[in-house]
């Protein structure tokens, strides 16, 4: 249906407009690029490694996204709820899914833009050596998937509250859990008392192994399904929350 696409694209355009009309987008981009550079060169030891790859670059992406992406996603629904525009939006002839997708796509495009502005890294590594282009491309795909997964999660927490600070903190904690889920300090919490399948389940939620595979240049359908199912689950929950808590 053409109406569906035009509705989604209208919402997407409006969201992108909102990103760039306020300083949020520019602040985000600058901070993201400065931090990614700092982490890669100072903490990641890009030069000391003496390898023509972007491992020390991608290594930090989930950590940066953990607190930067929620700052983009926190306002998506909270702001609508706080200012009352949710009522305006949901009495227009569009479905909740069209609004959710429109906003999600706008966030994805914005994050894609930020990520693509890191292209000097690729040029640097190309200049210094002969890196595996396929692996770099896969690394970028993986990084993007991590970013939009976090975006979907912060969209969900944003739909739960009209307070952006609460939304930010909850989504930050959820993202942190996803990053840490596979790490021994977290799994050790379960090892002592829970059956092994629970430990495995918790570990399986970890986002890092799914990202590492892509960084190595391996596109595994299981990794892609992992990201897509997390995104779908978050977006679906957002629609459920919005349906049930519109008036509050």
């Amino acid at each position: 249906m053409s109406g569906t696409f035009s509705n989604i694209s209208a919402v997407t355009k409006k969201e992108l407009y909102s990103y760039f009309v306020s300083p949020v987008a520019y602040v985000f981009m600058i901070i993201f690029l400065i931090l990614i550079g700092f982490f890669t060169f100072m903490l990641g030891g890009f030069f000391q490694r003496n390898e023509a790859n972007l491992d020390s670059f991608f290594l930090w992406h989930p950590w940066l996204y953990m607190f930067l992406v929620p700052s983009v996603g926190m306002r998506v629904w909270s702001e609508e709820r706080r200012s009352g525009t949710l009522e305006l939006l949901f009495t227009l002839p569009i479905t909740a899914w069209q609004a959710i997708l429109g906003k999600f796509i706008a966030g994805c495009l914005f994050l894609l833009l930020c990520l693509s502005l890191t292209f000097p890294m690729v040029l640097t590594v190309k200049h210094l050596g002969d890196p595996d282009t396929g692996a770099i491309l896969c690394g970028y795909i993986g990084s993007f998937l991590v970013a939009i997964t976090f975006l979907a999660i912060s969209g969900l927490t944003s739909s739960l509250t009209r307070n952006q600070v609460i939304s930010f903190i909850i989504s930050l904690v959820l993202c942190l859990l996803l990053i840490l889920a596979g790490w021994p300090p977290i799994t050790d919490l379960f090892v002592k008392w829970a059956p092994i399948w629970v430990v495995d389940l918790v570990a399986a939620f970890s986002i890092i192994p799914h990202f590492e595979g892509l960084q190595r240049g391996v596109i595994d359908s299981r990794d892609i399904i992992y990201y897509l199912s997390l995104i779908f689950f978050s977006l679906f929950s957002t629609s459920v929350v919005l349906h049930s808590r519109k008036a509050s």
Partner: protein
Amino acid sequence: MINVENLNKWFGSKRAVNNVSFNVNKGEVLGFLGPNGAGKSTTMRMITGYIPADEGKITVGGFDIDEDPVKAKSLMGYLPENAPAYGDMTVTAFLRFIASLRGVSGSERTIAVERVIETCFLQAVRHQPIETLSKGFLHRTCFAQSIIHDPEVLILDEPTDGLDPNQKHEVRNLIKRMSERKAIILSTHILEEVDAVCSKVIIINNGKLVADGLPAELKKRSAMADSVIVKLNNVKYADISSRLEGIDGVDSVMCLSENEHSCETRVIPKKTDGNYQNGLAEKVYHEASDADWEICELKTDEGRLDDVFRSITTTDDR
């Protein structure tokens, strides 16, 4: 166009809307009255499909709001309470956004945006971000978004709230102009507004429909309706009261004001007698000329909507 049947809504254990039914046809302006918290906004939110009804059926232009929400919503324009709008957008960008979601696109969209900017007097602020607008402009911007697709049904929650008297007058004229071709519901607690624009009135109190009718009919329910006010020169109230009470069909007489030059008196007819309206004033006139009183003013009170409103919405509380 709008059909509401046995609408019910609970918020927890509180029954916010209690078995409300009404309908609005094309060409009608329904005034939706009630004290704050009576359930006006809740009812409007259910009609516009923002919150679901717990019981009952709402159809707009033949489309059920539950079963066919997108079609029903596309027929409606809605001005929510407090006029929400995206603060970071400019007026023009906001109107363009709403227009495209309303299915108005291309050159049609440009024309529609220009049209509402003109009808709502927004030329001066068209490139200003909405968050910098004064309340009157904000309200008119939100009003403009509700009519951008020239809808057949218009739902306005307190359309003149926060406007100055001139702007109120403009908005009322606008509503009146549009009313021929549309079905309009407007909620308000300003009673003069009902007199000015509405062709039908319903009053809601504690979620229940307590009155329903034409504005003139409702006014008749006022205790003062059909009473005659007479102002006489050079008489004392004490001298005339018994004579006025003696007129056939008069229930009571009360003094409104008195000074050394004149005396203003209200003559209240017996309610049981049917149509007194013209008769009583005439009788008072004859009585006065028989007694050689000098009449300064003589008029029949139509009754006042706020009296009716107050009596209906306060007795029900007990």
